[in-house]
């Protein structure tokens, strides 16, 4: 069983839930950007949630299946087609032998996922199949997919999952639930209010490392740095320029900016799917 990449799209990588246990060695967690959509894709084809799948960003790929293949597509709506005909997403589907599965740009959302029943047959590196581009490890040869790549799939005895899950319409205007971060109290009451009352725009410089936000400058206290300490997924740092960055799955394990807020896991997934130019606002919640 295998698939062949005919066009790689913007940045298509193999991901799973990532590697958590090497953060003490400076290794980022990596893994799915939108865990919720990715795990749904795996669930729809009866895979374990941590199974390796394809993650596509903004512009989907074009691939050929060499044998009849069961798969599910979730996440951003990239206008999936099989041999030119629209196909249903958020459901397990059968792609016939030698058929071509193609995607276009995302109508809504940013990250789309393709899970294959049985998963992708790829070796783990440091406990995960996730691609980490800066260190060129994991996934397929440690890189994003290219035209001509042939990716092996696991053979699996199938039980067809005949469930259609309602499509998610990802919004470009979202409210992000946050907890107070470790340095929340470093900010003046004015700055705290400022951070919560204003909305921010997702910058074009956003990626798997972090989502940069742009808005009116947050006034910082004199002490605007800390002794380097851990960063985790969802940590909202305020840079020296007074702009927030939400750290995501490929973020460095430590940093020195003030950690003002921390997004809930649910909000991390929501934010991952907000397109460049989309608007977000923080709202405080308690444990």
């Amino acid at each position, binding site marked *: 069983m295998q698939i062949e990449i005919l066009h790689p799209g913007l940045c298509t990588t193999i991901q799973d839930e990532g590697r*958590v*246990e*090497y*953060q*003490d*060695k*400076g*290794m*980022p967690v990596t893994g799915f950007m939108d865990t919720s959509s990715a795990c749904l894709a795996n669930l729809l084809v009866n895979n374990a949630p941590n199974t390796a799948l394809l993650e596509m960003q903004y512009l989907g790929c074009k691939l050929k299946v060499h044998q009849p293949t069961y798969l599910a597509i979730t996440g951003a709506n990239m206008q999936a087609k099989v041999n030119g005909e629209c196909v249903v997403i958020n459901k397990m589907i059968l792609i016939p032998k030698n058929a071509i599965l193609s995607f276009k740009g995302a109508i809504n959302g940013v990250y789309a996922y393709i899970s294959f029943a049985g998963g992708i047959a790829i070796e783990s*590196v*440091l406990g995960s199949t996730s691609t980490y581009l*800066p*260190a060129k*490890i994991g996934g397929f040869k440690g890189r994003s997919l290219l035209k001509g790549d042939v990716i092996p799939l696991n053979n699996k005895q199938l039980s067809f999952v005949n469930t259609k899950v309602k499509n998610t319409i990802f919004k470009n205007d979202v409210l992000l639930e946050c*907890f107070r*971060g*470790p340095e929340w109290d470093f900010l003046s009451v004015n700055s705290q209010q400022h951070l919560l009352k204003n909305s921010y725009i997702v910058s074009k410089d956003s990626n798997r490392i972090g989502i940069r936000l742009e808005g009116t400058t947050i006034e910082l206290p004199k002490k605007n740095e800390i*002794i*380097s*300490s*851990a960063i*985790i*997924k*969802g*940590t909202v740092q305020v840079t020296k320029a007074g702009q927030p960055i939400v750290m995501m799955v490929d973020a*460095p*394990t*430590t*940093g020195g900016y003030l*950690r003002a807020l*921390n*997004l*809930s*896991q649910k909000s991390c997934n929501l934010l991952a799917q907000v397109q460049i130019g989309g608007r977000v606002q923080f709202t405080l919640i308690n*444990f």
Partner: protein
Amino acid sequence: MQYDVVFYGEKALLINFKNEISPEVHQHVKMCYFYLKSLKLNGIEALIPAYNSLTVVFNIDKIERKTLKVLLENIPFEKETKIATSSKTVKIPVCYDVSLGIDLKEVSLKLNLSISKIIELHASKPYLVYMLGFAPGFMYLGGLDKRLHIPRKKTPRLKIHAGAVGLADQQTGVYPLETPGGWQIIGQTPLSLFNPKQPSLVEMGNFVQFVPITLREFHQIQQKCK
């Protein structure tokens, strides 16, 4: 040992020690890190030690947040000092040839030190690995001689080779991956500080001793590592 424990997002707790970078505070972080590691608590996913903090990442389906907080607040870390004994010294060969230490001449002029003096000072004593972070395998080293303190380059280079050894303000360090960077490069190690089979040569609490090697030895070791 003084520390406090605060909630850090949905699935982590942050242990903050005294707000300073010092070998004493490092000892406390190290003690807690190795002690918690040895407990192998079900549901603890990661421990991220830093200069004066330790972040404990846990699985919310396996451990209740408040229970873990109480546990961390009451662990008798100080009675467990024997755990934190790993202070091995890792030798890292460095070639300080000007073909690899591309900023050596500039550093020599700016610091008013001869190149041989720079090498002597840099390789004269072991450095304490306070923590790893920033990139996989990147060591935050303490104890750089004051005479080697030099600001970063005004314009960062777009590409610095993996293994490059640099100076920046009060720090010295080794680039584990090929990245852009603004450090003053004074040499290069033929060893991989990060490779997929071993995420890091060293761990926090180790010491690192740089050992000067010739260009010829550099190429020999590089060949062997391949």
